[in-house]
């Protein structure tokens, strides 16, 4: 049972690609081995900046012999059928095979390495071919599989180098490939020839061997290895820690220990830790202090600058709460214990932070001189999208909508409008120009520096949230108003110009924006119709950014948010308006765009609720209800229904409802009438019928008020009371009675079941 050791040694592999590449190498090679019949006991993959490594343990020494049987035509089939069958096996001459016909079962011939025999079948004699493929030694299979893996490696980006025709992530220098067992190790003979066939210059091929290199600077030179254990041990002596997890653990251990000794704490950053572990083969942790001149910079600025530019960890002083130090990870030991390296890093950091400090002070000067709105002035010449105007146009639209949303979310309209006007100003700041990821954060600092109200300052950052399915959702009403307005403006804009996401293409992140709206509404329990907001913002996009009589327009659109585009107040205002350019758009408003967008929002809602394990059919049953533009109500309904259907009463009631509904639907289709005339108890013939009448009377009495209170749980509890009488009814009563009066009355009674359930959800959409 040999083990395989494979190392692909190259120039520095980008840190972000290493883990994936190690996993891909493992999959490609082990899949290839298993596909060729070589099973194995275990496999492990590793990476360092300069190598991808795979160790496979307990492999078969050779693939087993493979036997395949193919059933051919019957002995009395037309000759062409037999010839076709034989041709597929590489046999040209059919005569020896034909001679088998009529002989006893088992008679056979060997042709082109294939045994063809005749067997008895239920319907007569049939030809069979038996193919045997002999097993192959592991080395041969490994060589093929490795060459294949290298040629088809799924690097996110690969390149050529020199005169090579091979592609790899960076120049590939050597391949170590050995099979080893108790008896020793042998090199797997394989060659990767990167040259174009027929090229006049030879000599660039890479042939596998049993040697590798250690650390580039600390242990130059090649050495041979004889097994994985030998390899890992020798690498460590040559200053290479093979396992990225071990490097990560060592970095984190040393960093936290050094910080602890100074009474400091390293700010955890798992993504940075993984990246840094991919930049070094021999991690050496060095801790330094940030110059006093920079300690007053916002912590986000220090962290971002250090992380993005220098790949430093931030070190916090728990007594002051400030970021006061950094951890850098070098790739070598030095005679001066890293003093030169640390001094160099410190110097680079000072230059970086001098820039940041310059930006910070410059931005503060700017906002003190011209305010945040002044800082934002330049956004007029920044195009948001060529059909949707500039960033400044966008801010104007968002501010108008935020003001209209404010009363719906309990925010002060003036504050919401002000927040929307300043929330994106920092896009013009020097700091955000340098560090785009600080957008919003810097705006918050600058707003506080100007003494703007706290809700306005907080909205600068919060209005971008939420950015995904699990991050925090703002709860401050002003932030909520601006966040909603921002996302709704984006969605309606792209809907208005018909740039909707298709398939996997969503270049403007509209799915994320829609999910943002969903989460803002649900997490804050907001109650309003999203359609109205969609309507007015679609109109703003259609009208454009320099409307005539802007105040009048604004008054009408505000009315539409409160009352709907087709509400009486809105219509009255429109009717009074003199002929202006935008009037026809309002008068002949087409709600189709908003309807379509609502459908998109519902799709995102479904995905979101499915993640919270609410079944899609339950959501469909609730989406079919008329007030589905109120997302909070919709979800409340869906949650109650999901809970109800999990109870025994709920599940049985559903069956009862479906049975009633099916019978009724069929009867209505057959008779061409609707049985909604009201059943009369006087035609009831059995106790079970009378009991159902009574139960429906009771249930209906509580369902109506419960629905008025939006108390779905109470309404469903009332429905649960119907379960037993419905079951008893169906057990005892035949609906399709011969007496037409009785039949019609029973159908009308079934209609009462349907009607009682109707306000809760469309139960016909529930599966099962």
């Amino acid at each position: 049972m040999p083990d395989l050791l494979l190392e692909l040694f190259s120039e520095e592999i980008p840190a972000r690609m290493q883990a994936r590449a190690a996993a891909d190498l493992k999959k490609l090679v082990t899949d290839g081995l298993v596909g060729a019949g070589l099973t194995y006991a275990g496999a492990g993959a590793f990476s360092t900046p300069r190598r991808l490594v795979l160790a496979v343990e307990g492999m078969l020494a050779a693939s087993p012999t493979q036997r395949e049987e193919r059933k051919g035509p019957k002995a009395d089939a037309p000759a062409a059928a037999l010839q076709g069958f034989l041709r597929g096996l590489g046999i040209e001459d059919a005569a020896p095979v034909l001679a088998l016909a009529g002989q006893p079962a088992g008679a056979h011939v060997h042709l082109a390495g294939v045994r063809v025999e005749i067997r008895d079948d239920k319907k007569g004699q049939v030809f069979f071919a038996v193919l045997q493929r002999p097993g192959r030694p592991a080395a041969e299979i490994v060589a093929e599989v490795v060459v294949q893996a290298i040629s088809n490696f799924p690097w996110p980006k690969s390149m050529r180098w020199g005169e090579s025709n091979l592609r790899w992530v960076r120049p590939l220098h050597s391949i170590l490939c050995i099979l080893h067992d108790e008896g020793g190790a042998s090199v797997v003979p394989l060659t990767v020839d990167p040259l174009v066939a027929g090229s006049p210059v030879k000599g660039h091929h890479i042939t596998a061997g049993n040697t590798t290199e250690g650390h580039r600077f600390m242990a130059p030179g090649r050495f041979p290895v004889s097994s994985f254990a030998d390899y890992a041990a020798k690498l460590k002596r040559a200053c290479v820690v093979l396992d990225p997890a071990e490097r990560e653990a060592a970095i984190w251990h040393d960093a936290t220990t050094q910080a602890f000794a100074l009474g400091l704490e390293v700010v955890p950053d798992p993504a940075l830790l993984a990246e840094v572990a991919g930049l070094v083969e021999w991690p050496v942790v060095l801790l330094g202090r940030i110059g006093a001149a920079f300690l007053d910079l916002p912590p986000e600025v220090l962290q971002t600058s250090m992380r993005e530019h220098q790949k430093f960890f931030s070190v916090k002083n728990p007594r002051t709460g400030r970021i006061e130090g950094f951890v850098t990870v070098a790739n070598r030991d030095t005679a001066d214990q890293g003093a030169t390296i640390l001094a160099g890093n410190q110097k680079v950091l000072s230059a970086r932070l001098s820039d940041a400090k310059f930006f910070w002070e410059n931005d503060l000067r700017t906002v003190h001189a011209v305010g945040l709105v002044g800082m934002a002035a330049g956004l007029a010449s920044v195009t948001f999208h060529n059909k949707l105007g500039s960033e400044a146009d966008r801010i104007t639209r968002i501010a108008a909508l935020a003001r209209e949303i404010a009363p719906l979310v309990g925010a002060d309209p003036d504050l919401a409008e002000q927040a929307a006007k300043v929330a994106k100003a920092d896009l013009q700041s020097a700091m955000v120009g340098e560090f785009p990821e600080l957008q919003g954060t810097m705006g918050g600092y600058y707003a506080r520096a100007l003494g703007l109200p706290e809700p306005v300052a907080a909205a600068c950052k919060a209005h971008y949230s939420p950015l995904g399915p699990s991050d925090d959702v703002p709860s401050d009403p002003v932030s909520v108003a601006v966040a909603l307005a921002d996302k709704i403006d984006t969605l309606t804009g792209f809907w208005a110009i018909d740039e909707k996401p298709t398939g996997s293409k969503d270049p403007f992140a509209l799915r994320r924006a829609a999910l943002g709206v969903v989460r803002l509404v649900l997490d804050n329990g907001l109650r309003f119709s999203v359609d109205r907001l969609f309507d007015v913002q679609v109109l703003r996009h259609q009208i454009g950014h320099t409307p005539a009589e802007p105040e009048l327009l604004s008054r009408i659109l505000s009315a539409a948010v409160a009352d709907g585009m087709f509400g009486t107040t809105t219509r009255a205002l429109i009717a009074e308006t003199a002929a202006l350019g935008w009037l026809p758009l309002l008068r002949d408003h087409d709600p189709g765009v908003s309807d379509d967008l609502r459908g998109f929002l519902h799709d995102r809602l479904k995905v979101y609720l499915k993640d919270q394990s609410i079944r899609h059919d339950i959501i469909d049953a609730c989406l079919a209800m008329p007030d589905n533009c109120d997302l909070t109500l919709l979800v409340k309904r869906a949650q109650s229904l999901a809970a109800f259907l999990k109870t025994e009463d709920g599940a049985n009631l559903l069956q009862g409802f479906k049975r009633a509904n099916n019978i009724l639907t069929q009867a209505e289709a057959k008779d061409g009438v609707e049985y909604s005339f009201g059943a009369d108890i006087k035609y009831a013939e059995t106790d079970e019928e009378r009991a159902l009448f009574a139960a429906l009377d009771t249930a209906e009495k509580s369902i109506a008020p419960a629905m008025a209170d939006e108390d779905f749980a109470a309404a469903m509890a009332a429905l649960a009371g119907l379960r037993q009488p419905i079951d008893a009814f169906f057990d005892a009563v035949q609906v399709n009675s011969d007496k037409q009066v009785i039949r019609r009355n029973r159908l009308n009674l079934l209609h009462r079941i349907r009607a009682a359930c109707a306000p809760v959800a469309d139960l016909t959409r529930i599966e099962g």
Partner: protein
Amino acid sequence: MHINSAVNLFPPSADFCPRGWPGRIDPFAPLAYAEGALQEGPQMTGKPTPPRSFQEIILRLMTYWGAKGCAVLQPYDMEVGAGTFHPATTLRALGAKPWAAAYVQPSRRPTDGRYGENPNRLQHYYQYQVLIKPSPPDMQDLYLGSLEAIGIDATLHDIRFVEDDWESPTLGAWGLGWEVWCDGMEVSQFTYFQQVGGHDCRPVSGELTYGLERLAMYVLGVDHVMDMPFNDPQSPIPLTYGDIFRQTEQEYSRWNFDQADTAMLLQHFEDAEAECGRILNAPGLDKAGRLIIMAHPAYDQCIKASHLFNLLDARGVISVTERQAYIGRVRALAKKCADAFVTTEAGHSHSDRAGAAA
């Protein structure tokens, strides 16, 4: 240590072993610098002496890469944004002919002007550029040897190759490689060219770009570029970088940001663009019936257009949407020049060497 001529770089025989890149440096052998080390001769410690001035670093790079077989070229005589624009890189990276060149290129980035006040930013600065085609297998070692040559001791410093893919939208060029870090500071760009002017690079060139001021400030331990010694501080007339460039940084910053006549620049851009097209559209045969494709004169116009665009950008008259359009226009010129160059003797896709060996 022996000096290799450029001819030795590419032995015509088919059994040339790429691992044995001729003239590979022994990093611990003492280096002699005819002009660089001034008073000090070769050291017996086995470590190179630290350089003392900006110009000494340049001279050492020249000596080093010259010794490695590169043709030591002079700067291109036009305003460019980076050393890559020199035709010795842009055009020579195309086609199959072997090439090895090293040179200093003065570079201009009008938007980076800071009136000579910022310690690290200049609108006029120097890049050191090396291009070797095909990229030799020991390109990384050769590069590390150059750091050793300018006094960076790899046993004391932390030298790292950090992913940084290079792309020049104006040249229609891209490559994969790294930024090289020394103690956390980017000291060079290292790129394997994959495409230039829209053409696949076959073979691939290895390109090195050193930001000379930044590198020299680090090696010399200087915090403000203007304080950096340009010549040896013990010279009879010691000159700092500021003595030479502080005033010009001020003058150009003002002109770049406030004074450059944008209408004129726009016109010059149009003119350069038109002239580039005209040169390339001229018939291949001249009046004496010789076939002369004028790839280089056309490429000069492309370089001009690129620099004029940078000036217009610094003047703030190019909007975000227009920016892309201008870049696209320069790229179109670069592509046309590349298309023309690959039809010339210097740029064709079968090298003489390959032809001789075949």
